[in-house]
């Protein structure tokens, strides 16, 4: 049999190779873009074309889930970020100082105390704003703070937040000897229990994006809040992040981390 000329050989191999690649690609595309997406239940895509686009990676239109109607069933209406309230001018701070006169009964003139009330001096402004809003809306339940927050309007809350954020801290008030070495929970968390390290959010950074500064908070306040989170009595953390963590903490853990932060 005469051998085929190399041009014919070339064309045959070329044709087969290109054909195989095209065939494999077409079948794969057919299965991956058409068959699987359109036959999957539970997809939020509506329609054939939508399903194909979704399989290709086009983001679908955002369809937000309906939020629960009542305040107690929603964790909060405020998401904080440390840049959210912008910079504060002296007028805001001055107004806040005036308003804060009535806060000094519990939160003391310098905003720090050794009892069970949280220290506000130097707290992130967005955090104070969020908590006041949450008290007012009923996301965070407290018989003392709720009536007080009801009487505040948005402007007042911003002013108070500005004032306390600007107030210099005087701490620690409680000298706790064994607070020097951070407990393992603060440094490393407890991975097998799904507990993130406290320091990963409540660390030393001055640039805390959305978490309250815990340094120098009273021990009793911290233990109460952690316990409340663990039972979901406090539930104004938007994505349940504090509740998820607190649920796995033992009573000893709560005391350890509270004492650590209180002594800083």
């Amino acid at each position, binding site marked *: 049999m005469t051998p085929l000329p*190399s041009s014919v050989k070339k064309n045959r191999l070329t044709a087969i190779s290109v054909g195989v690649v095209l065939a494999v690609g077409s079948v*794969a595309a057919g299965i*991956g873009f058409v068959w699987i997406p359109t036959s999957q239940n539970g997809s939020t895509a509506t329609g054939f074309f939508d399903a194909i686009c979704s399989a290709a*990676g086009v983001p679908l239109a955002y369809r937000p889930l309906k939020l629960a109607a009542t305040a107690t069933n929603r964790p909060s209406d405020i998401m904080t970020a440390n840049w959210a309230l912008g910079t504060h001018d002296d007028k805001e701070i001055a107004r806040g100082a005036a308003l804060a006169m009535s806060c000094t009964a519990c939160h003391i003139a310098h905003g720090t105390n050794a009892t069970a009330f949280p220290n506000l001096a130097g707290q992130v402004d967005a955090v104070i704003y969020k908590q006041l809003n949450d008290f007012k809306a009923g996301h965070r339940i407290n018989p003392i703070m709720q009536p007080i927050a009801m009487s505040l309007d948005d402007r007042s809350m911003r002013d108070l937040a500005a004032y306390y954020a600007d107030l210099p801290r005087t701490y620690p008030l409680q000298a706790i000897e064994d607070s020097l070495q951070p407990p393992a929970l603060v440094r490393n968390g407890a991975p097998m229990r799904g507990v993130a390290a406290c320091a990963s959010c409540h660390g030393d950074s001055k640039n805390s994006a959305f978490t309250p500064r815990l340094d120098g908070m009273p021990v009793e306040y911290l233990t109460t809040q952690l316990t409340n989170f663990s039972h979901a009595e406090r539930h104004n953390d938007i994505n349940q992040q504090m509740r998820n963590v607190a649920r796995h903490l033992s009573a000893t853990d709560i005391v350890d981390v509270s004492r650590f932060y209180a002594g800083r």
Partner: protein
Amino acid sequence: MFSEPSRRLILAHFWVAFIAFLAALFLGEWQMFMRSPLTAWISNPDWYYRSVTAHGSAMGYVFPTLVSMGFGYAIIELSLKQTLIGHRWAWAGLAMVVAGTVTAMLPVSMGLASVLYTFYPPIIGNVFYYLGIVLVVLGSWIWVALMVINLRAWKKRHGAIPIPLPMFASVASAYLWGWTSIGATIEILFQILPAAFGWSTTIDAGLARIFFSWTLHAIVYFWLMPAYIAFYTLLPRAIGGRLYSDVMARLSFVLFLVFSMPIGMHHLFQDPQVGAGIKFLHAVFTAMVSIPTLLTIFTICASVEIAGRLRGGTGLFSWISALPWKNPMMLAVTFSFILLGFGGAGGLINMSNQLDFVVHNTQWITGHFHLIFGGAIVIMYFALAYDLWPHLTGRELILGRMMRTQLWLWFIGMIVMTFPWHLTGIMGMPRRMAYFDYADPALAALALPVIMSVIGGLLLVLSGCLFMWILLNVKGSEQKAMPEFCFSAAVHPPTHLPVALNGFTLWLALMIGLTITNYGFPIVQLLRLGQTSVPAIHVGPPR
């Protein structure tokens, strides 16, 4: 034989490669030791991540690249029987790789670039780490160009004569590397360096990961090529046999060229920015890339059988005992195939989106790639070094028995290290974590497999040191004339080949076409979507 300048050039490549390898080997074992129950935790994870970055970058970017480059230049002279064209460029390429390595390793060792060898945007390390990597890649591109240029020069003189198989495979590898390294280069030049220099405060991490995946799969085939070239062109000759089929060999290499790169998104199965359909497409084509390996296993086993029967072996399997088991190449390929079998099986699991979900980011992944690359491939790097060394140094290697011991140690060490490693992954142990509290009852079961891995790693360190010792112990102080170097002959040496198996145009076209279909839409879409960038996070000491 080698021309004198090329001999020194190739030796330089191998020495730098193996020195980098040995240093990284020690770092790797230190990492295994530090996160095992055998030592108290050093309380600073930063040291661990510096080591992970250095070990990964050296083993991934420096060591195999230099082996490919040196082996490629050797193949030009030995298979084309022509002096290497572009000597100065080749030395410049090596200099760039060395300079790039030093530039990159300095910030890493100072803790300024603990970003791991996959870069992990949006974390951004020191500028010089990335500039160093770019230099290494640019140096390797000089090699790519020289491979192509030298082949062109040969083809001009020899017309349509079949390209010698070693050169054909090497140039396929060069083309593959040239194309696949573009992805990470784009990511570094256009996304990471602007953030690292501070010109941009955000980075599209999803797009960056897509560009990295462009490189990430085919880079392992680039690493694999010298080993496969050794399978086809060194092994049959070394054991006194013939290559079963030259055409099958070429087919395997061109299949690698086509399918290695456009499948990278199987590294992004858990990434949300890539659509499920695209992931499926990549999974299907990943299945295609298993074909050339299966072809290779068949062809090489057949070639080995030819050698066995030529040596007087008979019967269905008893020819195996007739094989030259004292020959290091025989041992190395056998070990490589066994490790390739297990590693490849693990790879098939990773290839499935659903199964990958179970093992993603666990120690299964690290166990897998140490087994397949560190095991199946690096053992062949040893073997090809042993094969070339007498011709490169002009002196015999005298430690024959130690070569076998070294290979056995590597094989056993790799199994002892990686098999328990896979197990810990299935037990849920995450990768890239510096610290585990083995006292916790939930983690206690991990302690024993991890300790076994440490012991395996120790055997590997020993083997690596032995390897260097063997290379250093050449006989005599003067160079002797060595017998002519020859590659394997095929049972049917090719006289006429289809143009497609004697050139690369068709395969390059298919590779580029598949890149467009498999990568085009996700890249364009992410470029056009406005809200896909995230803030860059600079690692290193606080500013």
